[in-house]
């Protein structure tokens, strides 16, 4: 074993392998193409999945791991919208039942949502408007008041036109200047900016960015924007009580809605895990396709390497006989040809890594390709594995050759 692993022997074998490759560059190139495609796919998939994860984390934060949303429709539905078509809107009154009967819900708020064009001077942009209770201040998730303040109970009672704005408002309307105290127009009415939210970035939510948000008292929303938007009830619980709180909310809502036992819910209690399921299945789909492509390309390259090795053994039958006559053991010959296969495989892998590196330089701007040392390490392992697997049969054929027959071979 120690002799088997001797460094000088390994280098000797690699040298022999390299010589064999030099005499066969086209075949080696074609073989390595499979490895290249495999590595490239893997690196894109890994990067893709990890960026989906990142987006997902942000979206989770946006919806919160301690919040339930009582809405008309479930967040994820299977294109059977007709089933939900005639559902009643969520009524603010239902909140009373929840606050009254719930054990697990700590805080509640109405949330009215609509999209509206906001403008300041000559700039205009679509904004997502939320009309909420003062209690919503403690129910913000994934962000917080960074500048200024939330509206007060008094302002809510008086239906004041005050708003808290997301980070895009600062950049979109005020060139990065402090927006506090400024006035922007929403649907033709002026609102005073009293607070600003911390930047959240892009996320997997309708509209993409989590920052073009405007929050105002729900009373103001009702008075000025009454005809648009939909209502939800936002319920705050504790992360570890999500499941039970969800059940409870459902029960209370059924009571509030006076549903008979055999009637289906005509509302939905949503939470971020509904998205998690969707993201997970998306991730699995991407990873599945990726690994299929990778698997096929690796199998193709393994077959290629095997073919190169069969030819190499055939061409060098006489050499094998001679080496055996000179004292090579079957094991020496086996190791020689396995090393050759692994060398070819690693050269293919290197070519793949270089190509991926070049492609990341070109594509980095619009494709989430990442490139790191771990990839090189795994590529190396995969190449060694493929080389050994693909080289095993030809190398054993070589090792088992009878020296006399091999020497006589022309």
């Amino acid at each position, binding site marked *: 074993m120690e*002799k088997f692993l001797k460094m000088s022997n390994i280098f000797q074998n690699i040298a022999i392998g390299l010589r064999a490759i030099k005499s066969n560059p086209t075949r080696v190139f074609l073989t390595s193409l499979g490895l290249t495609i495999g590595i490239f796919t893997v690196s894109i998939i890994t990067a893709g999945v990890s960026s989906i994860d990142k987006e997902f984390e942000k979206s989770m934060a946006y919806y919160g791991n301690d919040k339930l949303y009582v809405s008309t429709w479930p967040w994820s539905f299977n294109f059977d919208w007709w089933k939900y078509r005639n559902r009643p809107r969520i009524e603010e009154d239902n909140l009373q039942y929840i606050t009254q009967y719930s054990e697990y819900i700590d805080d509640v708020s109405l949330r009215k949502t609509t999209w509206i064009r906001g403008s300041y001077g000559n700039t205009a942009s679509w904004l997502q408007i939320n009309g909420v209770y003062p209690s919503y201040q403690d129910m913000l998730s994934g962000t917080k008041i960074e500048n200024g303040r939330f509206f007060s109970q008094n302002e809510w009672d008086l239906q004041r036109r005050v708003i808290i704005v997301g980070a895009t408002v600062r950049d979109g309307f005020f060139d990065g200047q402090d927006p506090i105290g400024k006035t922007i127009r929403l649907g033709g009415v002026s609102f005073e900016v009293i607070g600003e939210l911390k930047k959240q970035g892009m996320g997997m939510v309708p509209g993409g960015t989590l920052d073009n948000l405007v929050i105002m008292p729900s009373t103001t929303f009702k008075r000025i924007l009454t005809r648009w938007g939909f209502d939800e009830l936002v319920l705050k619980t504790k992360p570890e009580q999500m499941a039970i709180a969800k059940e409870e909310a459902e029960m209370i809502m059924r009571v509030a809605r006076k549903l008979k036992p055999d009637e289906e819910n005509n509302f939905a209690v949503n939470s971020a895990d509904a998205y998690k399921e969707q993201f997970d299945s998306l991730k699995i789909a991407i990873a599945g396709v990726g690994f299929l492509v990778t698997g096929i390309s690796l199998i193709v390259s393994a077959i290629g390497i095997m073919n190169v090795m069969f030819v190499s053994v055939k061409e060098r039958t006489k050499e094998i006989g*001679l*080496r055996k*006559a*000179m*004292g090579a053991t*079957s094991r020496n010959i086996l190791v020689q040809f396995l090393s050759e296969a692994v060398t070819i495989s690693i050269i293919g892998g290197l070519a793949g890594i270089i190509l991926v590196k070049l492609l990341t330089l070109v594509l980095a701007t619009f494709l989430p390709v990442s490139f790191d040392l771990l990839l090189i390490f795994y590529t190396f392992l995969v190449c060694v594995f493929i080389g050994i697997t693909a080289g095993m049969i030809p190398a054993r054929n070589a090792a088992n050759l009878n020296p*006399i027959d091999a*020497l006589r071979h022309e």
Partner: protein
Amino acid sequence: MSKKEIISIESISKIYQLGDNVVKALDNVSLKIFENDFISIMGPSGSGKSTLMNIIGCLDVPSKGTYKLDNIEIDKMTDSDLAKIRNQKIGFVFQTFNLLPKLNAVQNVEVPLIYSSLSKSERISKAKNALNSVGLGNRLDHKPNELSGGQRQRVAIARALVNSPSIILADEPTGNLDSKSGLEILKFFDELHQAGNTIIVVTHEDSVAKRAKRKVEIFDGKISKDE
């Protein structure tokens, strides 16, 4: 002076079965070879000379009979033991040289050393010494196709010698050479014999056989003469 017996062949046969056709390449052959013997083996084509050489060289095993080398029965040995014997005790010289075409002279001579535990620098210096001793010190970097037939065979002899084996087996070493180159090669065999090596040469030429101290003749797989 009683010489040490290094090869002992006892009633060995080598039988090839090709369909219904049974070929007895060797038929009940016995032969003892002593240290520092210089033996020539002659006989018509197909008589079994190469078969015998291959068995002596541990490249092949007999179908019947026993073969002892240095008092060790070859039958009882593993594949890697046999490889080690070929590597350490035996040097082969072939009619067709059998050099590796892509390697230069030094690299070709290095081949047996790869399979014994030596460092790269030791291997190279040993290979160069061996080439010097066959007068090719000025052809170290030449590939086989850049050498004459005689020079090629001298590289092959250097390769056979490089691990200082005690037995040199040569199967028609001059068969592919003109008489002048052949003489040069034979000179090395004389020298090796004087240096104490055991030499066994298969040949068709009387001029070669004449140098041997002991002449064995083979006919139809049987030893017909041993003197």
